[in-house]
């Protein structure tokens, strides 16, 4: 019998999405709905002297206005949920509305609720907030320097934490090394830019005391808990529903003040309240990504053996510690400094710094792209220094395929891998040797071709709950599924994960249908509503399929095992004599004595004839907690041509070979890789969130922030190797972030390779024409 696992079937989500009949949060309408809007600080750092709401209170349609002072005792500050141990983490209070100080442009000082959106906006304009500006900076290195403006009295020097990762003896390695290279690398702030901005609709029933909150969430169960904390409501009185969610990329993981305030207004007013972020608000206040300034070094032998890696990082956290922020530049960054290599000596010091920028938190890849970028840049710089081909340096330092599970210097145990196979495949697709020859020929003609290679690993499938606890993550990292079979045999599966574009309504149904010998139409996947799904931890960290998908598989097996017991009873056979064949329980050797899964399901549900000891009904739940992270890997290769007169970069080819284990649905896996790679190429080529010297956001709209357009991006060549993971029953790894982790570094490596004749070793991304041109001018000895 053919299986659905491995089949690139069309997505079941799509019919509603292509016809305009899907329901996103802002589409939710309720009787008596009123609209919330926020008054936000135009200053990056200022004392808030007063907020005058008098004129606004009398404006047409205004229902209520709240300021920070009104709420101070009624709500709990926005919590930070990743208490990374051993780094003296300081988390200052983050009031939902600013009370006496604002700390970044967009910090909210008042909330207006009015009968219509337009009336709410009019009223916002009538509120007069009086500020006394203070010195400000959004630069983490400057904010950490002596004499910098102090954001929080609780955090001297603006240092939120200093976290160290260490393995082997990096000091000794560098002291004795033949070859050392060093670089200062800036990993710019990025704006996640889910095309759907955030939104919330809150409805509080005064009679039942029940709050329902529709919200743009990647993890509704986490939001239920954190909202219950902020609102001081018992957790079972809060129901969070993530309906259709229009992309997240990490930006819809955190708990924000805005959603909680929308809920608060509904509780206070006894009316449903809606808040919808506009794009400029999204760019100001929804979390940003990356923002590292890094001093990095690598050492090794003259013949290409890497012996050590050191970093000193200033990681900007923005004005407050967002939900997962402390864990991103530490646990999810420093621990992967070994990359795909056997680097024996590693030492990293990460300073988390509060600045007058928007809070920084998990953005696609979250800490791991920053690590892959610095490691892969250093490998290239080191290879140039010793005059060895960067492909050969990578090959020489790979963890060999027969050494897994492999413990790297930072202590992680990589589950599985075959790095050289992916590299060989990618090199073969390009014909690397031929490209080098073409490059040499082009250089003679004054044309600058380059090739960039990146061999990455990532930790994903987050992750064992015990590890989550050990690293201070404020929750578990198992996930869950409840498989329920109806009397007619059709199946609903309720899952703890919360997909928002990843296609799990399709892939998880493929898993279940295979277990029951069903066509996919018989299986429905339900997610996003905390009132009907089991406790789960959400969709991020490329974890849903590896962790929640495994829970789905385990729950489905439990259901089938129960069905088998009942089938044996109905067939008057021993359970041991039954086999599952052609979608039926059959008595071995007697195919006529058989029961389909649907027949058994009917009897289980009506329970007219159950064997002793077997309960009626046919459903099972599973909570799957993996034994380790999974470690996808791969090699990407990018070729470019740089116009030395203008600095313009043209991508010629982009080849990705990714290993995410066996794909459930290859079409969906490739789609994830496409999106991830282009997001990383945006980071490499053009995206940058710019704050000026006074920490004003200059890229506050889509006119100023360069989200990649179709015409700017290449067609990708996607291939795979398949190395199953031993840590889950599906053998799968995760593919949501892989593309992003590799591609920014791959592009920069290619451009720097093209510019070898100028002696350029590094240019900070994004590689806009202006930056590349300036680097060329500087290298030529002119002014940049």
């Amino acid at each position, binding site marked *: 019998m053919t299986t659905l696992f491995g089949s690139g079937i069309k997505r079941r989500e799509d019919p509603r999405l*292509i016809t305009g*009949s899907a329901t996103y949060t*802002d589409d939710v309408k309720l009787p008596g709905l009123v609209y919330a809007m926020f008054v936000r600080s135009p200053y990056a750092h200022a004392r808030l002297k007063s907020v005058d709401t008098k004129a606004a209170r009398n404006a047409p349609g205004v229902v209520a206005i709240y300021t920070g002072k009104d709420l101070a005792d009624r709500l709990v500050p926005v919590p930070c949920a990743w208490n990374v141990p051993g780094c003296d983490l300081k988390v200052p209070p983050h009031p939902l509305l600013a009370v006496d100080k604002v700390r970044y442009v967009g910090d909210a000082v008042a909330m207006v609720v009015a009968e219509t959106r337009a009336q709410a906006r009019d009223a916002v304009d009538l509120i007069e907030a009086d500020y006394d500006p203070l010195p400000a900076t959004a630069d983490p290195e400057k904010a950490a320097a002596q004499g910098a403006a102090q954001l929080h009295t609780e955090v001297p020097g603006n240092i939120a934490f200093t976290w160290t990762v260490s393995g082997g003896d990096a000091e000794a390695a560098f002291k004795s090394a033949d070859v050392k290279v060093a670089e200062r690398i800036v990993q710019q702030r990025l704006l996640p830019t889910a095309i759907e901005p955030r939104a919330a609709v809150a409805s509080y029933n005064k009679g039942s005391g029940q709050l329902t909150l529709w919200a743009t969430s990647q993890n509704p169960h986490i939001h239920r808990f954190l909202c219950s904390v902020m609102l001081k409501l018992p957790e079972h009185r809060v129901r969070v529903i993530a309906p259709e969610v229009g992309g997240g990329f990490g930006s819809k993981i955190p708990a924000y003040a805005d959603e909680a305030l929308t809920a608060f207004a509904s509780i206070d007013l006894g009316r449903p309240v809606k808040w919808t972020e506009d794009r400029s608000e999204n760019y100001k206040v929804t979390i940003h990504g990356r923002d590292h300034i890094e001093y990095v070094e690598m050492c090794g032998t003259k013949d290409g053996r890497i012996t050590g890696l050191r970093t000193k990082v200033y990681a900007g956290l923005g004005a407050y510690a967002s939900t997962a922020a402390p864990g991103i530049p530490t646990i999810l960054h420093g621990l992967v400094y070994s990359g795909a290599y056997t680097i024996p000596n590693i030492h990293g010091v990460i300073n988390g710094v509060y600045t007058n920028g928007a809070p920084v938190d998990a953005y696609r890849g979250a800490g791991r792209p920053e690590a892959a970028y610095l490691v892969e840049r250093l490998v290239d710089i080191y290879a140039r220094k010793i005059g060895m081909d960067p492909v050969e340096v990578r090959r020489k330092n790979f963890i060999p395929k027969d050494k897994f599970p492999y413990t790297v210097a930072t202590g992680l145990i990589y589950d599985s891998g075959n790095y050289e196979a992916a590299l060989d495949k990618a090199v073969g697709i390009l014909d690397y040797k031929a490209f080098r020859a073409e490059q040499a020929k082009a250089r003679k003609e004054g044309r600058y071709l380059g090739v960039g290679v990146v061999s990455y690993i990532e930790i994903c499938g987050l992750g064992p709950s015990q590890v989550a606890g050990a690293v201070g993550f404020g929750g578990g990292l198992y996930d869950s599924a409840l498989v329920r079979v109806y009397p007619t045999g059709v199946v609903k599966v309720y899952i703890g994960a919360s997909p928002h574009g990843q296609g799990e309504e399709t892939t998880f149904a493929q898993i279940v249908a295979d277990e029951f010998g069903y066509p996919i139409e018989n299986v429905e996947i339900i997610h996003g509503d905390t009132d009907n799904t089991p406790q789960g931890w959400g969709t991020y960290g490329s974890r849903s399929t590896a962790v929640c998908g495994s829970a789905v598989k385990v729950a489905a097996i439990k259901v089938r095992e129960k069905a088998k017991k009942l089938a044996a009873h109905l067939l008057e056979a021993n359970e041991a004599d039954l086999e599952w064949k052609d979608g039926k329980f059959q008595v071995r050797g007697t195919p006529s004595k058989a029961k389909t899964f649907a027949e058994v399901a009917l009897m289980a549900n009506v329970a007219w004839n159950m064997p002793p000891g077997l309960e009626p009904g046919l459903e099972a739940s599973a909570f799957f907690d993996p034994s380790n992270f999974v470690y996808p890997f791969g090699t990407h290769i990018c070729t470019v041509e740089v116009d030395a007169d203008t600095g313009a970069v043209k991508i010629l080819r982009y080849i990705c070979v990714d290993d995410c284990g066996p794909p459930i649905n290859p079409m969906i896996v490739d789609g994830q890789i496409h*999106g991830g790679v282009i997001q990383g190429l945006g980071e490499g080529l053009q995206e940058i969130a710019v704050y000026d010297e006074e920490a004003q956001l200059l890229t506050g709209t889509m006119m100023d922030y360069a*989200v990649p357009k179709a015409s700017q991006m290449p067609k990708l060549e996607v291939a795979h190797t398949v190395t199953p993971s031993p840590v889950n029953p599906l053998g799968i790894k995760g593919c949501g972030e892989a593309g992003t982790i590799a591609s920014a570094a791959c592009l920069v490596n290619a451009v720097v390779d093209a510019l070898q004749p100028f002696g350029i070793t590094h240019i900070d991304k994004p590689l806009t024409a202006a930056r590349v041109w300036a680097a060329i001018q500087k290298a030529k000895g002119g002014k940049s």
Partner: protein
Amino acid sequence: MKRSVTLQINGNRHLVEVEPRALLVHVLRDELNLTGTHVGCDTSQCGACTVHLDGRAVKSCTVLAVQAEGSSITTIEGMASGDGQHHPLQTAFWEKHGLQCGFCTPGMIMTAADFLSRHPDPTEAEIRDAIEGNLCRCTGYQNIVAAIQAAAATMRAGKTGAAV
């Protein structure tokens, strides 16, 4: 002061009372419950709000509802035929995995439909140029381009009566 506006939307006549400053997209979504048209920015960059106004793709966040008086408007809800048959672009987006979160999809389909009506046999580069006013953050555009190419082929075959 509200104004009365008559709009012909997806073949149906609607009389709505709107503020003069009301944007077409807000009237479609909030007054007429046509929530398939989305809002992703406030500066006419993202294209999620694209609809057809008298046969041409426009960003409905950049049109006042009063400007559309008497116009014929098609939204994503009106793209399938009366008997529910998907438009070739809807079919192609589904078959080619041209969407992930789906938020940009209605606008993307509306832009592509207008484009294909004027360029029935476009190159890949022409398609990429044509949709540069529509942003997608999920797909990397590759399968969107493939979907538009596939739909173009279907629509050409449909016109000439050739087998698809």
